[in-house]
């Protein structure tokens, strides 16, 4: 019975969580649970409140109001206990540039009161897991962008955390590095690790996340699995028409499907778009019409708008 209760308890439980900076609400009344063993995504444009939210989860920022429990412990009073069970990979490179790869592990392990032997053993395993064993003695400043990211994540795993928090882990990486990192993260997920991830890449979220929420202006706009969000907000297919003329606009409007007119581009959201696409191509110039599957990016843009944020 006791066991059942333990496993059912969410890893993260946020209720009416708020974060103010002066009078500005960076996180504005957010509530969500993250169950154990999933990869949970937080998406949103810059300034949406993602980083502010995760900073409260790993005890970096005090919460302004509401409640936040991690592993069933109140982050406001038990931050140290919680932090010892979390691994965090922050957005910026926070490696020690004067030290070697191995020394970075050793120094970091001491913050968790790990002894030297344990630290070295774990570091060796992590170096192998992240394909860094050849660079053991390299200085952190000599590593490529992809290696820096891998080392940051590897270092975050030195305390064998139950929750791994990744703040935009693949920003600025080349496609090879991104795919390699995704594979490693999927491997960790299979081992039962709970992962909390923020990202600007919708393909990344769609591939890795079992469940995600989209935030904007400090509030949660929607939550669900990538596929469920696509079905709910855009439908299966998208027809994009470049440079639509008035006749086509009229036709689209009369057909009664959800659409967005961007001036030089018309976007039509359709549950089953094949028929409509054929009709459009038959009646109008077909080379400017494209039929494709809806993606998370369409959901994201539809919900958060297309205006620039900065």
């Amino acid at each position, binding site marked *: 019975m006791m066991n059942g209760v333990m496993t059912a308890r969410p890893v993260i439980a946020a209720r009416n969580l708020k974060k103010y*900076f002066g009078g500005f609400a960076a996180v504005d009344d957010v509530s969500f649970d993250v169950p154990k063993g999933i990869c949970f995504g937080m998406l949103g444009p810059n300034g949406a409140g993602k980083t502010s939210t995760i*900073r409260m989860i*790993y*005890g*970096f*920022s*005090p919460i302004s109001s509401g409640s936040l429990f991690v592993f069933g412990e109140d982050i*406001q*009073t038990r*931050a*140290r206990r919680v*932090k*010892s069970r*979390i691994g*965090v990979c*922050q957005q*910026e*490179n*926070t*490696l*020690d*540039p*004067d*030290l070697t790869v191995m*020394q970075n592990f*050793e*120094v*970091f392990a*001491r*913050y*968790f*009161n790990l002894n030297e032997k344990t630290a070295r053993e774990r570091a060796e395993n992590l170096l192998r897991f992240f394909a860094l064993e050849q660079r053991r003695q390299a200085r952190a400043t000599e590593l490529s962008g992809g290696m820096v990211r891998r080392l940051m994540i590897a270092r975050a795993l030195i*305390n064998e955390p139950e929750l791994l928090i990744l703040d935009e882990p693949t920003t600025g990486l080349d496609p090879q590095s991104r795919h390699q990192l995704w594979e490693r993260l999927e491997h960790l997920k299979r081992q039962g690790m709970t992962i909390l991830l923020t990202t600007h890449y919708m393909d990344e979220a769609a591939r890795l996340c079992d469940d995600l929420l989209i935030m904007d202006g400090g509030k949660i706009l929607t939550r669900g699995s990538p596929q469920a969000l696509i079905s709910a907000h855009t439908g299966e297919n998208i027809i994009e028409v470049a440079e639509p003329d008035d006749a086509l606009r009229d036709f689209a409007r009369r057909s009664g499907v959800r659409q967005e007119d961007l001036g030089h581009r018309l976007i039509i959201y359709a549950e089953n778009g094949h028929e409509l696409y054929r009709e459009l191509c038959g009646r109008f110039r077909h080379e400017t019409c494209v039929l494709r599957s809806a993606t998370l990016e369409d959901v994201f843009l539809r919900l958060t708008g297309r205006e620039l944020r900065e």
Partner: protein
Amino acid sequence: MKEGLSRRFISVWRRNLTVYRESWKVNFLPPLLEPLFYLLAFGVGFSGLINGVRYDGVDVPYPRFIAPALIAINIMNNAFFENTYGSFVRMYYQKTFDAMMATPLNAEEIITGEIVWGATKSLIGTLIMLAVISVFGLVNYPMALLIVPAAFLGGFAFGSLAMIFTGMVRTIELFNLPIFLFITPMFLFGGTFFPTANLPLWAQQVAWILPLTHLVDLSRELAFGRFGGEALVALCYLVVFCAVTYPLAIYVMRRRLIK
């Protein structure tokens, strides 16, 4: 987050020690060469101009007079520069504190580890300088050995002061201001190269308020082999100075680190 200070601050101190050891050869040079340069310039170069200094009613040879002051200046500089420029680079450019804040460490432990590290650098510098100065027979043992713990106390005082500035400045260039306003005047007028008694009364009073004056007093008394009323006053001043600046440094840095 209100979990206070624990022994974990030592891991922050050890991080800095690990980095220091990577470049120890370069780090050892300044405290080794600086006293030699000063003793050469002031001891030999000035020897025709200054025969001795009247200090506490006795004539003291000039090199004997400035040697303990050079140690005190070194204590001040080591801790002050470590906890301004050094700490600022770690905080602002290297994001070292951000990484630490995501581990079981809290802000108090990070700042304490930094200040204790600054004091440790003062202590290391003092050991090297004492060795050099002893070769010239300019200090009286065994009393002069007490300069070593005094170096840690003085380093803690100047490191705490430095950390307050680190918690306040927006850019690294702004450290010029406290250096120009505090460090340089103390270096010149803190009883270092001439006794404060040579100053007009108002300037003597200003000098008395400043921490370096007391660190020089303490260092000089111990180097002369004495531990009397003057050394005790200096010691008390430095303890009180730490008791004010250290909590203030924690307060200012917490406000900066915890967003």
